């Protein structure tokens, strides 16, 4: 499951960044996201109402809304270009969002406006997908076991919380961005934005609980610049 999980994260990173073949061109912004303060405890998720999901997890599953690691690193932070790359081309690859073991994989899915999104149900039970969109049109649909994927896309940039009403602990995000340049931090808090043409950019880091931070970075040619973010964590 872990392998599958990382492969999906990689896939998302791939489709949201430029294709590997074009790696050479442009500059890179990389860095690390850490926190100060006290993050909330990761709490175990009680899935007992859905035995078929309990059976899929050898070890207890914990909440993913504030995953932190060694050296105060923060996982699941979306780092993206919020200004400076207007007019960049949109990706057409399909972003996959899976429901497996009564969890969303990935926890946070990044996609571009109008980029195809496929929601899949791999579980032997029925889920409902309920993106709590405010700017885009909200929807709420069941996906019985074995049902075909739901194909959709979003019209407006928005951070959309996703929940499953049938399994209230299931919680994730659709992050819909205009930019093709985005990255999600890994378990070490590291991110990398590649293939940036020369220019002045605003880089923004967003975390569902620890808030948003931005900084300006200027890229001149194919250089690598570092941008670190320190978010503030509160226990409750």
């Amino acid at each position: 499951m872990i392998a599958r999980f990382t492969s999906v994260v990689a896939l998302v990173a791939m489709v949201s960044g430029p294709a590997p073949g074009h790696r050479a061109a442009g500059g890179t912004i990389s860095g690390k996201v850490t926190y100060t303060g006290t993050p909330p405890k990761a709490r175990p998720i009680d899935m007992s109402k859905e035995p078929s999901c309990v059976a899929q997890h050898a070890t207890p599953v914990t909440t993913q809304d504030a995953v932190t690691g060694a050296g105060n690193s923060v996982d699941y932070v979306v780092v993206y270009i919020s200004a400076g790359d207007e007019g960049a081309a949109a990706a057409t690859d399909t972003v996959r969002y899976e429901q497996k073991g009564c969890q969303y994989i990935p926890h946070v899915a990044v996609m571009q406006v109008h980029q195809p999104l496929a929601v899949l149900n791999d579980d032997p039970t029925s889920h409902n997908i309920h993106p709590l969109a405010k700017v885009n049109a909200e929807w709420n649909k069941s996906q019985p076991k074995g049902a075909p994927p739901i194909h959709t896309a979003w019209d407006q940039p928005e951070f959309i919380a996703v929940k499953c009403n049938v399994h209230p602990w299931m919680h994730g995000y659709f992050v819909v961005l205009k930019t093709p340049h985005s990255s999600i931090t890994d378990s070490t808090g590291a991110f990398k934005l590649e293939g940036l043409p020369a220019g002045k950019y605003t880089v923004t880091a967003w975390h569902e609980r620890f808030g948003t931070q931005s900084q300006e970075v200027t890229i001149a040619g194919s250089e690598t610049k570092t941008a670190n973010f320190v978010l503030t964590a509160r226990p409750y």
Partner: protein
Amino acid sequence: MFSVDHKVIGRQYLDLALVAVFTGMVLSWLMRFHLGWPDTPIPGLGKIAPGGAAGGVMTPEYYLALMTMHGTIMVFFVLTTAPFAGFGNFLLPIQVGAEDMAFPRINMMSFWVTLVAFLVLVAAFFVGDQPPLSGWTAYAPLSAVGKDAGPGQGWGQTLWAISIGIFCIAQLLGSLNFIATTLDLRTRGMSLARMPMATWAWFITAVIALVAFAVLMPACILLILDRVAGTSFFIPGGLVISDQLQPHTGGSPLLWQHLFWFFGHPEVYVAILPGFGIVSQILPVFARKPLLGPKVFIACLAAIAFLSYTVWGHHMFLSGMNPFSATLFSVPTLVITIPAAIVTLLWIGTIYGARLRFTSASLFALGFVSVFVSGGISGFFLAQPSTDIYLHGTYFVVAHFHFVMGVAAMFGIFAGTYFWFPKMFGRMMSETLGKWHFWLTFIGVYCIFMPMHYLGLAGNVRRYSAFTDDYLQPLIPLHRFITIAALVTGAAQLIFLYNLIRSRLRGPQAPDNPWEATTLEWSTSSPPPHDNFGGRRPVVTQGPNEYAVAGPGGRDYIMQAESR
């Protein structure tokens, strides 16, 4: 088309009910199939409902939408329109010897308004995001808060409330006509004591309906306002739905339940009392003897009508209302079984010593007695708060109300159809097909609904689109048996449909009085002329029950409008 003739309007109501009942039946087929085989695609359904049943396997919300539509269509547009508005419209004026209803134009409006209500309800299937799924009882706040509460809580639910509100207006107009006609337009000699049993039943039903729909209508208005105008009649404060704090304060969900059931329980009698009347009129005709205790029968109807307003709380024993009131509501609920039991015994007593003739009409009337007993008896369990603790919300309830107000009322409708079809269309129906229809239906409904009692005793919860709970797994074979029975019994209704259409087109010519009956409709031609009696109003000299007597011409009956 826009006729003010009560006979045309009655047939229009019956046609509407026919469309509605087959719609409702197909919905129940889909539901039953899904319950038996939840993962098997239903051929073609994916094309009809790509959103609700992608690939032919329905989503849970689509199942609930089918269930809601099935309940709403059956209760309002079949069980109210057919036995009450349909047959009542066609027959009540003739049976009292009137030329038409008291207010023919209002009568016409009542049908067209009903049709509008039906179209609005059907529109809820297609307009907006999803059809409504709050059940036919539409409990607030699920039905009142709007889109946050999930699929089916958008436009579909609003249209549902609008449709029911419109339907209330239609039935108020209809009931007004029934009451005024019965009170004021009886022909000479037609005293209240000489009114046929069916007329009495329609009259008393109209009184019940007038009060019941007058309460549901404002309830629907309040529900619509909660949905579209942001009021909080039924929505309390501090609700968090799908992580959204709702902007309402102070409303009362129980208020909706009180208003709804104040209507809802009398509505059950709106559905079943016309059946009482139809059976009480048909049984003597085919038993060739008078109904046992006609005055007792009428007194029982009146008692049921009165009591029907005092029992609504038995739907709410476990709703969170004051537990003391549960006992209070339980008593009249149990007491109402006394008049119902008396009526049943009167029918059985009428058969005693009879010379029973078996026609499709009389078989369905006899079948009515059987299924009404089966449905009524299970009421004992649900009328007591103590046993309701276990059985409430299970298939036991589904079995109870389907037998007592669904199947029994349908048997009344079938009996009435086979009985009055010759009068309505001037042609006879096929008795052979009618009897096949009866036997398949009679055995079929017991195969469908009797096992639901067992499911209920095993704790099988109703309104579930699939049975995922561990303890429900052993019950799935029983569900499959019910599904097969439902498919077969439903298919038997196609015999009825074929018989209706074929007989209407080329059934043999009907005589004026094919069943040797006494009431006024059999004194006029088949079908009756526009003014019912060809310019001469009949003068009534007899009661409706003059069977087993020495009549003119060696007949064993005397018609109401002939002298002894």
